[in-house]
């Protein structure tokens, strides 16, 4: 009964405070639920996208001496298997074809026998390029090597047996050749370095007719795999999906009892995604939690404004016979009401944010995840309500000297215990030590060893930024306290332009309210550092994702000529005419032997390559991009090599390097002399391991061919996808056209492909809300707490300008001081976050990206909130003074 009366009274007379407290809780719940739902949804996306890219889930290799049909039967009966078909693999001595009066031959190759229905069951294994979809199909590279086209005849060499003649029906591409031609059961390091160059596919019946005899004679050259497709109704979390899939594979191996080995492509893909998922989880911890903590602190500040009034009310109730238990119950009741209202509002807010940022209002990918995140965020909201409303009420109700409560204005004689102990300095030192330990070589935040179900996360790394954030907050408090306490002269001089002869009084007032002002400044510091670090991190992430995509794709749009196609640099002119194309840069692609090692060689035009492909200095060692590329121009036989090559061959600048390249005229390898000029770590379209960069003219001169491997197209801001479409219409099936956005989605990591755009929007949006609250609301509340002071000054005759001097001086100190300390702390935090979360960056950033427009908006929002709060306070105290004098 007392509780209901109390609540009615609160709702009628303390509505503003209750709503403000509930709003703070709503923001905290909103942050947690929004980011949680992003995390859950992105994990599900990672799982979905990674398994969508797998063309064959399991490749089960029948072991010598065991009947493949038994293996097939057991695979078909394994849990979760939707389709399973046997595939024959036969190694040939080579292929031969005659075209245009010349005979082309290849080295050893592989002939695959596909059963009926295979293309339907595993549609992503082969991509049709030309000719029929069934019959004898030749891989693109093989067709190029043999100069073969549909209708041509190819001879297949069989070891120790007569060759076989087949008629080519079509040409195909094997997009995932690496996994398709894997050595099943072999560890990662023992896998073949590259898939076979020469591949031919034929129907199973035909294959058995040609290669069963070979298998009888040479069983080492013929083997059978069972390819299986599994149901993809997996857990949305990549880790859980990985555990389930790899568990099934191990179970099958046990059931096979040695008859077959399982190549678990699905688990291998999920294994890569699970570390990305953990990185996403880390991002939540590093970037999401601070927002919720901030919202909790703001709630505590709002709730704290009513503390004195509550103490008075408690004293009155106690004087009328209320017991401590009853007083505590009232506090708990108030906390429950604001907690529930705040949690409900926060969940609605998160739904709205989810719709705007992620296009969905659900809190997770599954019902379980949705319930988990929504209830978890709501519980956090209730906990904040309990901590900020119920606990202070309980503490006050138990304290005998209620009046003595916390005093924020007056003679601050003794610094808090943490300040006397130098806790801020210790925290910053500890943060530095943790950062140093985690920054040393060999550190990995997420460790997901291939094939091991469990993955480890170095949660310890979280301590570095957390300690820095806490230490910076306490240090900001100490500095504010120091400046206001000992630097009164400085404050007086600083506010003189604003306050005139009142500057001494304003400085004295600020000095004696330094605990209040320091508290407000700390909140601004924390908010600014949160916003800055999050914004810089996200911006740097976006920058690196673009660099990654650009490195992989080479340009906005890349046109890759088919192997064997004879297109010279003049081909660029045709592409340059396409609408939206600003510049076309031809790149030669050859293979060159460096000793026994076959490496990719890229021939570039030194005059235009730097500008055309936005080469970054970070791609090179030993000079800037411009300088090293200009070396290729000054001395055409210069060459840039990988660091590994430099190490292996002990190269020094200027050293002679003999490469073997194919001569286009003789088709034979010939020695070509180059001179080592520098190290290339990365290069557009180049593989991540060893490659070479040389002058295209020199390569053309020495090999007798200026054939271009690819054209890098700069769209100059036009939509890469649209331009790619138009280019496809021009080049047809002759060349492969990839735009940077598609490339980013296909070949980026799961984390890149999920894209942090949604998370960024949520975090940065909430940071703006928190900025407004931390500056405007906290300042307004602080000024409201001291309304008595301004009213008295008004009654004594202070003019608006003079009252404004007090208010603007405090506002400026809190806002500018907080933004300055927040900027310093935020920058340090951003550096630390980028270092600690280095695993999410590919390639690692050489510089941080600063999102100036966002930071400008943040400062603007904070300053506008301050101006609104200060102006609002001034307007309130400009009311007819009598009304306020009566309020005293």
């Amino acid at each position: 009964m007392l509780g209901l009366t109390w609540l009615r009274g609160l709702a009628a007379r303390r509505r503003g405070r209750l709503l403000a407290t509930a709003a703070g809780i709503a923001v905290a719940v909103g942050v947690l639920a929004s980011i949680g739902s992003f995390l859950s949804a992105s994990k599900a996306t990672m799982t979905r996208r990674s398994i969508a890219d797998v063309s064959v889930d399991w490749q089960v290799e029948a072991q010598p001496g065991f009947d493949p049909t038994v293996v097939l039967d057991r695979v078909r009966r394994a849990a979760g298997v939707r389709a399973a078909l046997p595939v024959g693999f036969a190694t040939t001595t080579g292929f031969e074809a005659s075209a245009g009066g010349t005979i082309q031959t290849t080295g050893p190759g592989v002939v695959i026998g596909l059963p009926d229905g295979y293309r339907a069951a595993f549609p992503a294994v082969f991509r049709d390029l030309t000719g029929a979809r069934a019959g004898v199909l030749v891989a693109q590279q093989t067709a190029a090597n043999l100069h073969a086209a549909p209708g041509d005849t190819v001879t297949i060499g069989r070891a120790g047996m007569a060759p076989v003649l087949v008629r080519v029906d079509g040409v195909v591409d094997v997009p995932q050749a690496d996994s398709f031609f894997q050595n099943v059961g072999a560890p990662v390091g023992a896998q073949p370095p590259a898939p076979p160059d020469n591949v031919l596919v034929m129907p199973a019946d035909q294959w058995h007719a040609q290669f069963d005899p070979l298998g009888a004679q040479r069983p080492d050259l013929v083997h059978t795999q069972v390819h299986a497709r599994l149901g993809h109704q997996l857990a949305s979390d990549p880790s859980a999906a990985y555990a389930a899939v790899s568990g099934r594979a191990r179970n099958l191996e046990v059931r096979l009892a040695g008859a077959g080995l399982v190549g678990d492509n699905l688990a291998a893909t999920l294994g890569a995604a699970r570390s990305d998922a953990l990185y996403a989880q880390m991002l939540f911890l590093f970037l999401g939690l601070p927002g919720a903590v901030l919202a909790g602190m703001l709630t505590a500040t709002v709730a704290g404004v009513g503390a004195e009034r509550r103490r008075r009310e408690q004293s009155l109730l106690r004087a009328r016979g209320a017991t401590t238990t009853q007083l505590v119950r009232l506090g708990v009741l108030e906390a429950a009401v604001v907690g529930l209202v705040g949690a409900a509002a926060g969940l609605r807010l998160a739904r709205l944010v989810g719709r705007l940022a992620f296009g969905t209002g659900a809190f997770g990918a599954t019902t379980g995840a949705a319930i988990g995140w929504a209830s978890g965020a709501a519980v956090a909201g209730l906990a904040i309500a309990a901590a900020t409303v119920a606990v202070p009420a309980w503490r006050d109700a138990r304290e005998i000297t209620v009046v003595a409560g916390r005093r924020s204005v007056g003679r601050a004689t003794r610094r808090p215990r943490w300040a006397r102990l130098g806790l801020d300095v210790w925290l910053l030192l500890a943060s530095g030590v943790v950062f140093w330990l985690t920054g040393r070589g060999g550190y990995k935040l997420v460790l997901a060893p291939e094939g091991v179900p469990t993955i480890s996360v170095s949660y310890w790394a979280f301590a570095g930024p957390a300690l820095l954030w806490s230490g910076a907050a306490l240090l900001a408090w100490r500095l504010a306290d120091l400046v206001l306490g000992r630097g009164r002269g400085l404050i007086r001089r600083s506010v003189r332009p604003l306050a005139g002869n009142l500057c001494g009084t304003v400085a004295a007032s600020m000095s004696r309210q330094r605990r209040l002002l320091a508290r407000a400044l700390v909140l601004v510091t924390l908010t600014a550092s949160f916003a800055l670090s999050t914004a810089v991190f996200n911006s740097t992430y976006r920058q690196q994702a673009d660099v990654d995509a650009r490195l992989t794709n080479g340009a906005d749009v890349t046109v890759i000529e088919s192997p064997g196609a004879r297109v010279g640099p003049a081909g660029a002119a045709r592409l340059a005419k396409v609408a939206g194309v600003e510049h076309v840069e031809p790149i030669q692609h050859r293979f060159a032997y460096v000793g026994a090692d076959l490496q990719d060689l890229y021939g570039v035009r030194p005059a235009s390559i730097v500008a055309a492909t936005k080469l970054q200095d970070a791609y090179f060692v030993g000079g800037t991009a411009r300088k090293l590329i200009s070396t290729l121009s000054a001395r055409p036989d210069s060459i840039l090599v990988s660091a590994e090559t430099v190490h292996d061959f002990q190269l020094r600048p200027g050293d002679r390097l003999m490469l073997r390249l194919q001569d286009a005229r003789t088709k034979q390898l010939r020695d070509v002399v180059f001179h080592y000029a520098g190290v290339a770590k990365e290069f557009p379209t180049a593989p991540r391991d060893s490659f070479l960069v040389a002058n295209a003219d020199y390569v053309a001169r020495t090999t007798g061919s200026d054939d271009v491997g690819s054209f890098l197209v700069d769209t100059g801001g036009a939509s890469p996808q649209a331009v790619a479409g138009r280019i496809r219409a021009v080049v047809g099936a002759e060349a492969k056209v990839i735009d940077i956005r598609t490339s980013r989605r296909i070949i980026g990591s799961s984390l890149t492909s999920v894209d942090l755009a949604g998370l960024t929007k949520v975090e940065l949006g909430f940071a703006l809300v928190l900025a407004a609250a931390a500056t405007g609301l906290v300042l307004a509340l602080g000024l409201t707490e001291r309304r008595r002071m301004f009213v008295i000054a008004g009654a004594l005759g202070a003019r608006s300008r003079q009252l404004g001097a007090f208010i603007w001086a405090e506002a400026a100190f809190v806002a500018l001081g907080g933004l300055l300390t927040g900027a310093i702390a935020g920058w340090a935090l951003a550096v630390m976050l980028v270092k600690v979360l280095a695993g999410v960056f590919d390639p690692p950033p050489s510089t941080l990206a600063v999102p100036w427009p966002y930071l400008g908006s943040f400062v603007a929002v904070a300053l506008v909130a301050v101006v609104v709060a200060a102006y609002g306070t001034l307007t309130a105290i400009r009311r007819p003074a009598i009304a306020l004098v009566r309020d005293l």
Partner: protein
Amino acid sequence: MTAEVLVRCGGVARTFGAGPGAVVAVRGVSCEILAHQLVAVTGPSGSGKSTLLHLFAGLDEPTAGHVSWPGIGTRTELRPGPVAVVLQGPSLIAPLDVVENVALPLVLGGASQHEADAVARGALARLGLEALAAKLPEELSGGQAQRVAVARALAGRPRLILADEPTGQLDHVNGAIVVDALLEAARHLDAALVVTTHDVLVADRLPERWRMLDGRLDTRDTRRCSA
């Protein structure tokens, strides 16, 4: 010689709110406060004493009639300067020490901090409060705080001191000390003093008494006594 009129009220009324719930705090008051006049305005709680004092001080505006300050100036020229107000409750500014509080009206009036501090210390010394100069309001008793408020009124060298229930929250002993301080200030400055009070003992200390009842002021009920 006729005494100078500091405040003149003609048919002044002050109504709070509107409609049936409106409260008429002051109705049809006409009076004059002369230079050097010492007057107590008495009456029960809610009779309109404080509202009338606020009208005298220019803190409030009448809803009917008019208030003027012939011997002082316009409404905007009253504070800080010729009119000083001592408010009912604690009226010292918490983050300023006693000297800074007393000096504040002078600084607000344009004096330098140095000059204002010197005058403030003189005012405190006159009321025997110099020992409190460096203390903060929270370190003062209620009586000390109210005497400091009187010193603040004294420091501005006003011609009219308006004290609204200055002893309302004090015991009789401290109340008497505060009234002594007010009378000393008025005598020292040769200023007029108007004190609202419902305390007969306080009213008896002033030579003239006006009575307020239900918003109406009765200035005829005067009773001469020595201050």
